[in-house]
């Protein structure tokens, strides 16, 4: 038995909160609490050091090619569609996706797949609706897109606010989850784990910008998919390369039996499932660090290829997780070595994937998967950091304060300074929130992105009637309602504040807050008789042409403004 499995307790559920619906997390166990440090796994350490050495080398290489703000924010726009699609997959296939979904299938079988579908299905929509138009209209961030058509200063301030809220909340959840995870996998103290993540990410981002971040994400995606493939192949080997044997073995060994192959173990309420699906789908489409990746490619063709390749890789990944998930049920439940004397899985349900690696591949595969999981966290935090830095230095400083004409050298300096500040903030918040229940913090970014960023972005691209006033009121309605309903929902009202019953029954309110934001935006826009409103409406056709044909096709004289 590996060192990894020797000691742990069930306080590891914070990880599940990183990006998973809290309903899952709460179904799985407590999200807060201490995590017992693990004995050091030398294989994991060696593999992780190899990864760090390789990525630091890439950062050095990238730093010699990062001379301007465009290089920093978007890698000079020279990433290919295949590379960018892999990086997007690397950005989105988080530790929570890998460990969390596998752990949920281990716990509740089929119901764990809800999250996998939610995480995957945003990518076809990104391709159909957003990839080309966003790429053609923006330059560095999605805020550029919405401010093309609407009154720049006001809509930028609102969109920057949405971006910062999403990035900071996402960052807190990532850092707390990272600290707990690394503590568990590598035996490092929590503070050391958080600071190590921050230092490495700052090195990548400060010196190498988006180019280094992209390659960290690409390497991580390739390693993660390789690890998942190897583990899945070994699981299939144990089941005679038969899916039927795999499912039969899972049902036979799981305490709940055959019912784990059908819906209903974790969730019974279809509305609850719908709230999760809405939040995951539209939240992903509003995540600023994901949208920003569309600008790292040279043109709209590569942007569309990016979305397709990202879908392809993630589709493969989530299909492979079916094998891993049911493989955990087949191979772990009948092996007491993976359970505590009290009968719970050592380290908690999120450790199911790592235990599975131990069961089928021994210490070598366990070390590899642990190192890949650490790399996963680094890649996601790096992407968030670039996005947060761009919101401040580009969207706020360059476009709002300098009115679009900043000193390029100063902007790049500010970008690097902002990166450092974000890194420090991440460490401080990560340590402050160590023992807090972060489930609600993990919920907010997806719901806010779905209720604030997505409606503004979508309507600015597809609805001629949108005005600045409507966009601002809609965004505010989405923000206030989503934060308010999360507070009165089960995660805060019951789990944090200690009330017996929540005032609002669902953890993920985007099913209600997204339509509210759309209705408010529509209502305020159609009743907006201001001069600015007329300009906003008139701008639509010019932007529509540009969004489809690119800047070079914008020779029409349709727009009056």
């Amino acid at each position: 038995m590996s060192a990894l499995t020797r000691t742990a307790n069930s306080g590891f559920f914070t990880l599940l909160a990183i990006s998973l619906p809290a309903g899952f997390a709460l179904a799985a166990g407590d999200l807060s609490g201490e995590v017992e440090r693990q004995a050091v796994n030398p294989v994991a350490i060696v593999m992780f050091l190899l990864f760090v050495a390789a990525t630091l080398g890439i950062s050095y290489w990238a730093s010699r090619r990062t001379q301007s703000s465009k290089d920093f924010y978007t890698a000079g726009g020279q990433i290919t569609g295949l590379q960018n699609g892999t990086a997007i997959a690397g950005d989105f296939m988080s530790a929570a996706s890998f460990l969390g979904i596998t752990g949920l299938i281990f716990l509740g079988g089929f119901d764990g797949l809800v999250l996998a579908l939610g995480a995957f299905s945003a990518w076809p929509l990104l391709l159909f609706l957003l990839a080309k138009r966003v790429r053609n209209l923006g330059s560095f961030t999605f805020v550029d897109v919405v401010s093309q058509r609407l009154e720049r200063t006001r809509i930028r301030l609102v969109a920057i606010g949405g971006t910062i809220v999403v990035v900071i909340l996402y960052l807190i959840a990532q850092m707390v989850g990272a600290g707990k995870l690394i503590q568990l996998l590598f035996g490092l103290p929590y503070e050391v784990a958080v600071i190590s993540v921050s230092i490495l990410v700052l090195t990548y981002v400060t010196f190498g910008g988006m180019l280094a971040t992209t390659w960290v994400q690409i390497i991580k995606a390739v390693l993660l998919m390789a690890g998942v493939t190897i583990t899945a192949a070994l699981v299939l080997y144990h089941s005679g390369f038969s899916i039927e044997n795999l499912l039969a073995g899972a049902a036979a060994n799981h305490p709940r039996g055959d019912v784990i192959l059908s819906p209903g173990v974790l969730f019974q309420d279809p509305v609850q499932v719908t709230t999760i699906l809405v939040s995951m789908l539209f939240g992903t489409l509003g995540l600023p660090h994901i949208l920003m990746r569309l600008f790292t490619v040279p043109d709209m063709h590569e942007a569309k290829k990016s979305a397709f390749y990202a879908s392809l890789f993630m589709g493969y990944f989530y299909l492979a997780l079916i094998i891993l998930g049911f493989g955990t049920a087949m191979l772990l439940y009948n092996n007491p070595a993976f359970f505590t004397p009290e009968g719970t899985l050592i380290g908690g349900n999120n450790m199911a994937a790592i235990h599975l690696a131990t069961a089928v591949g021994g210490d070598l595969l366990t070390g590899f998967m642990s190192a890949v999981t650490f790399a996963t966290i680094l890649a996601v935090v790096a992407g968030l950091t670039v996005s947060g830095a761009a919101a401040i230095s580009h969207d706020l400083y360059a476009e709002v304060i300098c009115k679009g004409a900043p000193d390029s050298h100063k902007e790049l300096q500010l970008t690097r300074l902002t990166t450092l500040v974000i890194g420090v903030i991440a460490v401080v918040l990560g340590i402050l929130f160590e023992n807090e229940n972060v489930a609600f913090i993990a919920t907010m970014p997806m719901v806010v992105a779905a209720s604030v960023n997505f409606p503004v972005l979508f309507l600015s691209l597809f609805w001629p009637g949108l005005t600045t006033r409507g966009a601002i009121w809609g965004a505010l309605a989405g923000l206030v309602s989503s934060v308010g309903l999360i507070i009165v929902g089960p995660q805060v009202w019951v789990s944090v504040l200690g009330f017996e019953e929540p005032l609002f029954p669902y953890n993920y309110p985007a099913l209600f807050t997204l339509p509210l934001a759309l209705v408010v935006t529509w209502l305020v826009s159609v009743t907006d008789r201001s001069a600015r409103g007329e300009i906003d409406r008139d701008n639509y056709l010019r932007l529509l042409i540009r969004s489809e044909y690119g800047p070079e096709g914008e020779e029409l004289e349709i727009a009056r403004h």
Partner: protein
Amino acid sequence: MSDSDKLAAIRAKTRMRLLFALVTLGCYFAFVLNWVDGPDRALAQTLGDSHINGSLLFFVGLIISFILLELLFLFIYRVTGGGRE
């Protein structure tokens, strides 16, 4: 290409974008049917005597269908876009 031709082409493309998006959304939210009690519960049926049931096939089918939809979308745009896509 004249202004009106460009706008007509864009409208056609927009209709196609929205059609693909609606199909995706329809299939996506149909997944909730797994948690709805119906008269026959077709998704609960198994494939012969195996443990593979309709719900599992639905999940796998959705993932594969979405990827195929994307391929179709890119193919149609390549064919109808006159090399601009």
